[in-house]
């Protein structure tokens, strides 16, 4: 029914409204519509631009207030300024859009009032010239760029100030009980050490819990500021603590405190000092009334408790260090050492024994004296002595102080006692040596050959001399227990005998060398003139004797004649020089002929006959020498002598020329009677080295070296004759290059070392003799 009535009304209006419909498009109406739309557009743009205006921008004020409220209402979300800025940016955008909506509605309503035709949003934004979305987007960007940060900063600042105003009053000084709990928790970890400022400042969290700040939801700036305030409070508490701790330290350092001896009395003294400091602070006229002054902190009492015990130990150790220990006496020490001379032989071991014997009792005596001097009542004295004696054992510093004090006494006593005892013991041994003015010549030579001629560094080094040589009969004394100081005295006496012997021996050697140098030319002349070796030897010996006698007179030496080893050295030097001179003056043709003869002999691959060996051997004794001297036509050249020497060696290698560009190696294995000869070209150095080294058979070499006679013997018996060289190499050739010889020598040395090591033999000695003129590279 209603629908039909509506239809009727519509038709009637349609018929009656013909005139009014014609007026809708009048120019005035259209113009007024446009005017209203453009005016609204201008109002919209102006309104947008004024939204963030500093002065009277109601939108800006509204947004700032809403941001401010949002920060306070949801401080948890807005705690971090960075996150808050992001949230506020979104919130600002929403607010700006809402403001734009309101502005749109307002300008549209205003336009509708002044326009006979409707002014729609589309018409409005056509007048603005951009779409609604673009206008809103541009408005947001414009606002964000120009005003958002400023509004956030202002809102944040106001929110922080307000929150800080509301919460800062909660930050104050905690009650003493709570503070004691907080500080004691830290102090219990290190009860003997005062708290550092940082330790107290680290209670910030506990303080905030105590003040109830920790559970508040706060903006981070407020949180930081409250933390700073809490730290200021803790800083003041730290200052008060430092004052009390300082009072403790001063009291602990005071000399009268050291005289209190027991920890209980020391603790009472320290607490009294801390309490005095608190009272002194309270009576300070200029102190800040807002600052709470606390009583002695519980952690300070803990510190006193711990420090008093430490001070008890420290004062005890200081007493020990500053007190001269009077026990044990020298008599006690003398008795102890004499009761066990063997155990007390070494001074260090003796110190240990003495310390073990006397330290405990000595410490107890020192402690007892300390307690008696401290005015401790009789009733508690024994218990205190026991506790302090325990400190000596348990406390490192106390123990060291007591040990040092007691050791000082023991060392002083032991030194005197040991001097007395060792003097007595040495007296017996030195009595045996009193009649000995100098060492025998054989003894000196034996020491020289065994490389012991020199200052003895220990009695053990000299003991063999003492036991084995004539004139030094102190065996019985040595076998009796004695102190090491007695040994030192004996060693000193022995060195007084050895040193002049060594000096004399060295002098004899140096005189021989000097004579050899000075008489080199005279020797050449003698050889040239055909003077016999025997005559030369006599002249040399006479000259050495004369020179040495002069030195003995000037140096007041007790060794007036040459040692046998020096006589042998003279003979050796003379022979070396003599051979050298003879070789240099020998005729080359003769050498070549001799070499050819030797080559023929070796090629036979047979052992040298007894006759040949006799021919080749050089007579050692005076008679042979004389015979040789008398037959001047049989003078032996150095090369001949070297060849003869080689034939007697366990292993010998002879390199000789067999023609231009051709050489030969002859290898002889001494007592094995084996020989081998190989030829090589001297110009090809590498091939020559390979040929020469390859010519030596390692197995045969080892076999030949194994047949050597022992080099050393007991007391010189069984020693090798004066031909200690195991491998003799004679380079008779004048074509073999120097480099070839060097490389052959290196290879042979390595081979000998390898063979000797493999079989556990002494390293064989190698002697190398070469012709005087060698071709250079």
């Amino acid at each position: 029914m209603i629908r039909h009535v509506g239809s009727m009304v519509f038709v009637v209006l349609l018929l009656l409204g013909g005139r009014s419909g014609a007026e809708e498009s009048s120019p005035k109406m259209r113009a007024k519509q446009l005017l209203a739309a453009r005016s609204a557009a201008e109002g919209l743009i102006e309104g947008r631009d004024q939204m963030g205006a500093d002065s009277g921008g109601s939108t800006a004020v509204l947004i700032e207030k809403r941001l401010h409220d949002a920060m306070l209402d949801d401080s948890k979300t807005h705690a971090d300024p960075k996150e808050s800025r992001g949230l506020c940016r979104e919130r600002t955008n929403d607010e700006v859009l809402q403001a734009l909506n309101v502005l749109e509605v307002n300008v549209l309503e205003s336009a509708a009032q002044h326009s006979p035709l409707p002014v729609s949003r589309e018409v409005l934004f056509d007048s603005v010239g951009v779409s609604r979305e673009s206008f809103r987007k541009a408005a947001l960007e414009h606002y964000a760029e120009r005003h958002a940060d400023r509004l956030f900063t202002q809102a944040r600042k106001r929110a922080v100030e307000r929150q800080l105003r509301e919460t800062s009053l909660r930050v104050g000084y905690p009650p003493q009980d709570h503070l004691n709990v907080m500080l004691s928790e830290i102090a219990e970890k290190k009860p003997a050490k005062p708290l550092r400022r940082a330790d107290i400042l680290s209670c910030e969290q506990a303080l905030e819990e105590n003040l109830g700040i920790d559970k508040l939801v706060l903006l981070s700036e407020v949180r930081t500021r409250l933390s700073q305030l809490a730290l200021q409070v803790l800083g003041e508490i730290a200052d008060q603590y430092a004052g009390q701790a300082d009072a403790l330290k001063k009291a602990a350092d005071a000399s009268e405190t050291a005289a209190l001896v027991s920890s209980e009395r020391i603790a009472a003294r320290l607490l009294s000092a801390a309490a005095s400091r608190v009272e002194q602070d309270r009576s300070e006229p200029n102190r800040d009334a807002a600052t709470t002054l606390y009583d002695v902190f519980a952690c300070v009492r803990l510190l006193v408790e711990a420090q008093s015990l430490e001070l008890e130990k420290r004062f005890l150790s200081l007493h020990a260090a500053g007190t001269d220990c009077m026990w044990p006496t020298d008599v006690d020490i003398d008795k102890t050492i004499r009761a066990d001379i063997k155990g007390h032989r070494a001074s260090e071991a003796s110190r240990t024994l003495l310390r073990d014997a006397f330290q405990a009792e000595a410490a107890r005596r020192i402690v007892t004296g300390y307690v008696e001097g401290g005015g401790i009542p009789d009733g508690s004295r024994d218990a205190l002595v026991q506790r302090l004696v325990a400190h000596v054992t348990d406390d490192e510093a106390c123990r060291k102080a007591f040990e040092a004090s007691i050791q000082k006494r023991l060392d002083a006593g032991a030194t005197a006692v040991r001097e007395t005892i060792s003097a007595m013991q040495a007296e017996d041994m030195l009595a045996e040596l009193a009649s000995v003015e100098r060492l025998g010549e054989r003894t000196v030579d034996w020491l020289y050959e065994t490389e012991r001629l020199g200052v003895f560094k220990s009695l053990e080094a000299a003991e063999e001399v003492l036991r084995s040589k004539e004139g030094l009969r102190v065996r019985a004394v040595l076998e009796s227990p004695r102190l090491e100081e007695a040994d030192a005295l004996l060693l000193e006496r022995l060195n007084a005998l050895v040193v002049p012997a060594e000096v004399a021996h060295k002098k004899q050697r140096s005189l021989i060398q000097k004579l050899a140098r000075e008489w080199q030319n005279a020797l050449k002349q003698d050889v040239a003139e055909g003077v016999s070796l025997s005559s030369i030897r006599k002249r040399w010996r006479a000259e050495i004797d004369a020179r040495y006698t002069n030195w003995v007179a000037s140096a007041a030496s007790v060794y007036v004649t040459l040692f046998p080893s020096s006589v042998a050295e003279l003979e050796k030097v003379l022979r070396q020089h003599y051979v050298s001179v003879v070789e240099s003056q020998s005729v080359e043709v003769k050498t070549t002929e001799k070499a050819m003869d030797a080559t023929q002999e070796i090629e036979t691959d047979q052992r040298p006959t007894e006759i040949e060996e006799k021919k080749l051997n050089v007579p050692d004794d005076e008679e042979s020498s004389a015979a040789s001297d008398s037959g001047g036509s049989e003078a032996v050249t150095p090369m001949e002598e070297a060849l003869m020497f080689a034939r007697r060696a366990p292993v010998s290698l002879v390199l000789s020329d067999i023609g231009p560009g051709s050489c030969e190696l002859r290898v002889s294995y001494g007592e094995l009677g084996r020989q081998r000869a190989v030829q090589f070209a001297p110009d090809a150095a590498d091939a020559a080295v390979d040929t020469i080294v390859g010519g030596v058979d390692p197995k045969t070499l080892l076999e030949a070296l194994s047949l050597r006679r022992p080099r050393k013997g007991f007391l010189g018996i069984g020693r090798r004759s004066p031909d200690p060289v195991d491998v003799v190499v004679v380079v008779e050739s004048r074509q073999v290059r120097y480099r070839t010889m060097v490389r052959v020598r290196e290879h042979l040395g390595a081979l000998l070392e390898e063979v000797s090591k493999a079989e556990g033999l002494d390293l064989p000695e190698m002697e190398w003799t070469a012709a005087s003129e060698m071709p250079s590279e």
Partner: protein
Amino acid sequence: MAKPGQERAQIRRIQERAKGRPESVFAVSPNDVLVQIALPLVLILAIATRLLMASSQSGPSVMDLWKQYLLMRMDAVSGEWERDSGLPEFVSFDRIQWEGAWPADARFSDLCTRAQELTHSSSLTSNLLERSLAYVPEAGEGDLVLSYHELVEHYPEMALDEERREFALNHLEQRCRKWHARVENLQWEVVGQCVALLPAGDEHLDKNLATQMALLSRELEGRGVPLLPSVREEYGTATGEGQ
């Protein structure tokens, strides 16, 4: 004898009455009432009303002689004023020439300048009446070649008394009002065109409508297009009422 359908209807009615359901007492539906009665009635009423309105506006009138002579001379003088103003040339807004967002048409400028006389219509109508009374029709116009004053000399009964003068002034006033309306429409169209063509943020635009109209009016006047006060002061003066 009843038909089977009627019998079934009767039986159904009896059954429904037995069940206690109410029976409709009307024989026609509401739709039938609307279509068959109300709509024709409404149409008849509408047509009658329209006919009455038409008869009241276009009835044949028999005018007096003085009135005929006077109206003829007033029409001639009014037509002369209308031609002189250039209004007939601007039968539509499209005739106005433009340059950018502003009109640049000397004829339209003349029209707007001349139209300022319409602002003071009483003086214009009095002027036109005097000119009409002095107007002498030319021969061939189907009228006496005498001015109305001369006619009155010959026919004293045609003299304009107060009532006749009032009639004449009203007649001229109606003509002036029509001219005013036409010029005003043209000017509104010009204003609308200007506003439509100006870019957003232009210096002649303002959120205050009165200020905006004042700015536009001043600019148009500077360009030789003075607006009628009815247009110019549509929103009041710049410092007066407005948005």
